[in-house]
């Protein structure tokens, strides 16, 4: 799952050097601002076949939280 998430990050930020850790936050990836966050969430939704609610979209501030949520909600 981390590998797939890494792929989504790399595609979204157009940067093949990205390596994800649980602690990785928006601060660690230069391009990860509030606008790109939306593109990222959208790409995650598509890759893992889930639909986050409006509050969840905003709460995913680091990779660990994202993985936790994916564990429970991912359908593929």
């Amino acid at each position: 799952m981390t590998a797939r998430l890494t792929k989504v990050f790399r595609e979204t930020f157009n940067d093949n050097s990205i390596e994800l850790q649980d602690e990785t936050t928006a601060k660690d990836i230069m391009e990860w601002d509030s606008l790109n966050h939306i593109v990222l969430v959208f790409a995650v939704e598509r890759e893992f076949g889930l639909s986050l609610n409006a509050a969840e979209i905003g709460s995913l501030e680091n990779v660990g939280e994202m993985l936790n949520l994916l564990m429970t909600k991912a359908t593929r």
Partner: protein
Amino acid sequence: MTTQEELSMAGEFDCALDAAKCAISRQEDKEAFRILKEISDPNSDFVSQSRITKVFASLDCGLLDLKPIRIALLASTTVDHFADLLRFWLALEGFAASIWIAPYDTVAATVLDEGSKLYTLRPDITWLFLTYRDVRIRSNPNNAVSIGKSIDDLVFEYKKLWNKIQSNLHCVVIHNNADVPAEDAFGNFARQVAWTRRNVLHRYNLALGDAAHAGVVIFDIDHIASTLGRSRWTDWRYWYHSKHPCSLEAHGALAFRSARLISSIRGQAKKCLVVDLDNTLWGGVIGDDGLSGIGLGNDAAGEPFLDFQRYLLALKERGIILAVCSKNDESIAKEPFQAHPDMRLRLSDIAVFQANWENKVDNIREISRMLNVGLNAMVFVDDNPAERGLVRQLLPMVAVPDLPEDPSRYVQAIDSHCYFETIAFSTEDRDRANYYGGNAARTELLASFSEMNDYLKSLEMVSAQGNTDPFNLPRMAQLINKSNQFHLTGTRFSESELRDRSAQPNFAVRYFKLADKFGDNGLISVVVLDASNKQLIVETWVMSCRVLGRTMEEFICNDMIEIARRRGCTSILGRYVPSGKNKLVAQLYERLGFSLVAADQGTTTWQLTLKRGLDKLNTFVAPTDQFEQASLKHV
């Protein structure tokens, strides 16, 4: 589509994107742009479009031969993602867009504050990017009586904003209408109760459309919402989370249609549709199946072709020129037009009919030449993929849409490309297809005359000329902004700029119309003359290429001489500024007897000294006083 197919398509997409990135690293930005263009699809998902946009953002736009355009986006929603996609889609239309987004939800304030950045930015387009949420009219039974007035008041408020913008800026205003939401408390019955949200928003949209005057374009997002489907258009999550105007999935289609609209505002819409015959206008092959054997008529196989013809006829009636390009014997190809009872298109609807066995590339070139319509203003519709491929390869500037195998989807396939967007409709537009029809007849006549002069004389041309008036102003501005080939200086004017020019006493802004025995060509030329000094300066001179080589240029030059003399000028000064498309007129002033006085980086300046006894130029166009009578005769 199976998952397998999806995966392989995703793989191809990734490969193409990687290829584009590689091209950029080799500094082959044009090649990268070509690849991005190839994989772009307005209806593809938001993630793919965002990824293309990201790669596009790393391109050096300076290397792509794009024309700059400045856009101010004033929105009450988050439009950053929309702007990113719009930049890309505008690049595909040939524009390098710089988009300024006004601070969130300050639409009216930005317009009303003359100190706001809007007014220092001086954009080409000011866009009031609104949604139905901005239509703050209470819809409840207590309001039933006053709703009409509330709608009028709101539209009037917007009208004031448009006027404010246009009295300070020379720009086109785009204004979104209301995207009527699917949900309504009344459900089905909503249409029968005056004050329901659905009815209020529809009435508002009608009122807004009526109120829009020249220079204001209503962007019909309600239509886009219904085309996509309102459930696809809406995604409440991204409204609550980040105040996006519509679903992210709808952003691509929205940006694509915006780019087409803006392209049309800049005079780049398509003007001519070239259509094949066999299996395109009718089912089967006329040369093989014969008149009674082709599929055209009232059965499931023939009806789609009837409807396709109806669609083409509707295009023609709004001013799109139709031409035929078919591999056929001409007499056989024309048979259905003349003798098939179910045929909707008649020969008179077709401006140029090219049916022969030569290749289609040459034929399309010939159609372009005969109509004086640029190849980049043409759309070629053919059911045969090989023919499409040939034209795409050899004439890349011609738009060649893919056609589905099933004719029942022809109309949809062509319509979805939004080739023929427009921002105005005049009687000239309506009659244009007929003008061109007459024009093609003229060219054929030309071949039968050995003496050019005899031919011109036989045309019995008469011209009406005059100064700017409110009636002709829209067409004058349209002509200046659409003309590329016969355009000496490449200047562009909005309607309001043109009006300003003509109001200044030193300027003369003149139009010319031309009628001949084949019909009325309408308003075909505009000149902007500056008589501030002893020299009359030709600031702008455009002419429709339809009337090229008919001694209209000489007629116009005579008019300029007349004006120069009346204003006490001793010479006329004309400039030629090369634009890449106006080579046609590089030697115009020389031909008219001007002398070269300066040349700088391709720009040449020409002077005509108004000596005593200077002869008027020879022309076969007769002046205005005979016009009324002659044009009546010609109608």
